[in-house]
């Protein structure tokens, strides 16, 4: 049985409009790879040309940012949940 991944609204066009999908793997990297294997159009939305997570893409394993838990090598359990959450920033650049 796979673990759940919460998909943000703009990416559901690539998951058949499913807000939650399941994917399998022993660690975060394998789970994300399984997600992109079954939903290939997500790859370019999540990864840059070098195959790394795009700068504005945050991935949480339950409540922890995977950057602080070992990134792709973070082990997972089927009861865990991954959340894909965009980093949001901006602002007027009138004086820069």
């Amino acid at each position: 049985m796979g673990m759940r991944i919460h998909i943000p609204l703009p990416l559901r066009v690539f998951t058949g409009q499913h807000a939650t999908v399941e994917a399998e793997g022993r660690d975060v990297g394998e789970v994300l790879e399984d997600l992109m294997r079954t939903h290939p159009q997500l790859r370019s939305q999540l990864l840059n040309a070098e195959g790394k997570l795009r700068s504005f893409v945050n991935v949480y394993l339950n409540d922890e940012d995977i950057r602080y838990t070992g990134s792709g090598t973070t082990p997972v359990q089927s009861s865990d949940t991954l959340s894909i959450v965009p980093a949001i920033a901006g602002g007027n650049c009138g004086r820069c």
Partner: protein
Amino acid sequence: MALEMAKAEMERVQRHGEETYPLECCGLLLGHMDGGGRRVVVEAARMRNANTESPQNRFVFDPHEHLEKQKSARARGLEIIGFYHSHPDHPARPSQFDLEHAAWPGYSYLIVSIERGRAAAQAGANSFELAEDRSRFLEEAVVLTD
């Protein structure tokens, strides 16, 4: 596409910008997509501007606060359909910095202009969506309802 929201919710966004002036405010647009692809705001939810270096012309979401707001919205049956922020004493139009830091196409990016502490009366609130190739923002209609 268009963004639909109650006048009261737009006023909440503008009040937020007035309260934080001369610093930028920011927040989430919670709601859903209607059958025609229009994004409908149910609630504009304030977020803390976590930028401490230059909050007068920059904003950033605290990522954990964002995660928690996403979870609570999901529990209430609401989606994050977009984001808002203010431009103190600058037009309600996206900057190059906004473009460089945008997330995915498919969200509404609402900007309100706050001039000398008050929500700008003319063209003071505009919404945009990111082009599919991420090269520019495209303005979308803002439909205000009673």
